C-alpha cells in the first residue's frame, strides 16, 4: 500500500485510542445496570420455587417458625414418598404424561402437515384458510369450552384419554410457527428433490422436517407446557368413580387444611414441575431461538 493511502485510511493514533476509552465507563455502567435488573428479575422468579422446594423438605413444626428457615438442615424426604404413593402423584403424573404425549405428538403431526400444505402446495382458498387458522389463535379456549365438552360427552369420551387430548390435537399457533419455518426453506430445494423423484411426503420427511428442527423443538416445548399445565379442561372432562385426574388436579387433591399435610402438598408441587424444568433445560436453546426469530437479524 502506498504511504499516502495508508495515511488517508488509518485514523490518527490519539483519536483511535481516546474514543473507546471515553465510552468504556458508560458501557460498564450500562452492563452493571443490566445485570442488576436481570438478577433482581431472576430472584423474583426463582425465590418462590426455592421456597417451595425448601418447605417441602421441612418438618410441619418448622413451617410455622419465625423467621422461616431458608435451608432445610435435616431434609424430610418421606413427604415425597407420601405424595408419590398415598397422595397418588404417581398415577396423576402417569395420566398427565400420557395425555401430554398424545397432545404433543398430535400437535406436531397436524401442524407439520398443515404448515407444509400452506408453505409448499398450491390450492384454492389457501390464503383464506390460513387466515382462518390464524383467527383460531384469537379465540380464547373458554369460548369453545361448552361446545367441546358437549361434543366429547356425546362421543362417550368423558373421562377418557381421547376426551382429554383430542380437542387439543390441532393448533393454529403450531401451524403458523411451522409454516414460517418451512417458508425459510428455499424453493430450489423442493424443486431439486422433485427432479430427483421425491414426492411431497418424502420431501417433507427427508428435507423440510429436518430443516425445521429448531421450530419443531420449540413447538414441542410450548405444546408440552400447555398440555402439562392444563387445569380446567381435565377438571370438567373427567370424573366418576375412577377419575382420570391429571397432575394439576392431583395437586389440588393433595391440598389439606392441616399443617402436617402442607409439606406433602409442596412435595407434590415439586414433583409436578420437575418434568417442566428438565424439558426447559434441554430445549432452552431452541425455545430462545424460536422466541427471538425475526427479532434478531
Amino acid at each position, binding site marked *: 500500500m502506498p504511504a499516502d493511502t495508508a495515511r488517508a485510511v488509518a485514523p490518527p493514533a490519539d483519536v483511535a485510542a481516546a474514543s473507546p476509552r471515553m465510552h468504556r465507563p458508560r458501557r460498564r455502567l450500562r452492563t452493571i445496570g443490566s445485570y442488576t435488573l436481570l438478577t433482581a428479575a431472576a430472584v423474583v422468579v426463582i425465590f418462590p420455587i426455592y421456597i417451595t422446594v425448601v418447605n417441602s423438605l421441612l418438618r410441619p413444626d418448622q413451617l410455622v417458625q419465625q423467621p422461616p428457615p431458608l435451608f432445610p438442615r435435616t431434609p424430610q424426604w418421606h413427604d415425597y414418598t407420601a405424595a408419590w404413593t398415598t397422595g397418588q402423584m404417581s398415577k396423576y403424573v402417569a395420566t398427565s404424561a400420557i395425555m401430554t404425549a398424545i397432545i404433543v405428538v398430535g400437535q406436531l403431526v397436524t401442524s407439520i402437515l398443515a404448515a407444509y400444505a400452506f408453505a409448499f402446495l398450491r390450492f384454492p382458498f389457501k390464503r383464506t384458510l390460513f387466515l382462518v387458522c390464524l383467527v383460531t389463535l384469537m379465540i380464547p379456549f373458554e369460548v369453545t369450552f361448552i361446545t367441546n365438552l358437549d361434543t366429547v360427552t356425546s362421543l362417550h369420551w368423558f373421562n377418557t384419554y381421547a376426551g382429554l387430548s383430542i380437542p387439543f390435537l390441532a393448533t393454529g399457533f403450531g401451524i403458523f410457527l411451522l409454516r414460517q419455518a418451512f417458508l425459510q426453506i428455499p424453493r430450489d430445494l423442493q424443486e431439486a428433490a422433485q*427432479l*430427483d423423484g421425491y414426492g411431497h411426503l418424502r420431501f417433507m420427511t427427508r428435507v423440510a422436517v429436518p430443516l425445521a428442527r429448531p421450530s419443531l423443538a420449540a413447538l414441542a416445548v410450548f405444546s408440552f407446557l400447555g398440555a402439562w399445565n392444563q387445569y380446567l379442561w381435565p377438571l370438567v372432562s373427567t370424573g366418576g368413580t375412577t377419575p382420570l385426574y391429571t397432575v394439576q388436579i392431583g395437586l389440588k387433591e393433595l391440598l389439606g387444611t392441616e399443617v402436617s399435610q402442607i409439606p406433602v402438598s409442596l412435595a407434590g408441587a415439586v414433583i409436578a414441575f420437575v418434568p417442566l424444568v428438565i424439558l426447559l433445560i434441554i430445549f432452552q436453546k431452541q425455545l430462545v431461538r424460536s422466541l427471538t426469530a425475526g427479532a434478531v437479524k
Partner: protein
Amino acid sequence: MAQVSFDGVTKRFGDTTAVDDLTLSIPDGELLVLLGSSGCGKTTALRLVAGLEEISAGTVSIGERVVNEVDPKDRDVAMVFQSYALYPHLTVAKNIEFPLRQRGVDKEERTTKVKRAAETLGLGDLLGRKPGQLSGGQRQRVALARAIVREPLVFLMDEPLSNLDAALRVQTRADIVELQNRLKTTTLYVTHDQVEAMTMGHRIAVMSEGKLQQVAAPEALYAKPTNVFVAHFLGSPGMNLVEGMLVESASADASGGGGRGTLSVAFAGASVPLPAEVADSVRGSGPDVVLGLRPEALHLSPDGVIGASVIIVELLGAETHVICHTETGARIIVRQGAGAPKPRIGEPVRIAVEPDPEAYHLFDSSSGNRLGGP
C-alpha cells in the same frame, strides 16, 4: 443422451407471456447456452424442459418422447440451480447420493457412484462435510456431482456460476466445459453473462422478451448478428449503433451509364462510406438504417470519417475504451490497444473505420433486422 426440442412452445403467466412460440432443437451431446437479459424467458424455458412449469402451448421433446405430460422425475434430467440447492442438513456424500436413493439403487452401487462422481469433481476429501462448511466453488462442484451421479439424459444449468467470484467463475466455467466434453451429455445452460455464453456454448440461443432472437455458434453470432438486439447484447462493450441514412453519391462515370456511386451512411454531419461488397448487398434498402460498428473495428485517426469529442477514457490494462460523443450526442466506443496514444477528456477526435467489409453491420431502422443477407 438425447436431443431436446422445443416446438412452438409458449408459456404464459396470466397476461404475461414468458416464452413466446419458441422453436429450437438441441442435438445430442451439444452444450447450448440460452442467453438473455433478466426476465427474457430463458430460465422459464429451462424449467419447461425440467417439468417445473406447465407448458401453455407447443411441445417439448427429450429424445423421441414428447414430455409435456411427463412428471419431472420421469424426464431423466438433472438440474444445477443458481443457489446450488444443496440440502444443508446432509453431508456432501449424502447430497450426492440423494437422487440415487429414490431410484432404488442398492447401497454398494450408490457408494461406488458417489465416490466416482466425487473424484471426477475433486471432492474426495470433502465427502463428510456439510454444505455450510464448504466454499462457494466447492458447493458448486457438489451440485455438479449430484447432477452427474445418476447419468441423466440432459443437464439443465440455471446460471450456476453467478454466485461465484470472478476468478472462481473463470475456473469453474472451464471445469464445466471440460466435464461436458468428457460426458457428452446434452446440456442447456442459462446465463445472462455473454462472456460465459461465448466461452462455453457450442451454440448460443439469444432470447429477448420471451422470443428467440438468434441461434448460432458464438463466432457466427458475433460476426453476423441477426438484429440490433443481438448486435448490442453480444460483445463487451457492445456494438456501437448509430441511426443514419443510406446516401448514394454520384460516381465519376455515372454519366456514361452502368457505373454506380459510392454508398454511404450519413449521420450527424458525418458520412461513412461503405465498402463495395457491403454496399452491393444493401443497395435498395433503407434509406433509414442503423449502422453497427464493433468498438474494435474503430480507431482514432486524423483521417477518420466521424468527428467526435472524448467523454471518458477507461483504462483496462491490455486495452483502453475511449467513449466519445458525436456532434448529435450519439455515443461511440472505440477500443484501442495498450500501445495506442490516450486522448484527453474533451479532446476533439476523428474516428476511422477498418476497411474490412466484416466491420460494417447494417440494420433496418424500423424492424431492427439485419440488411444484406444472413
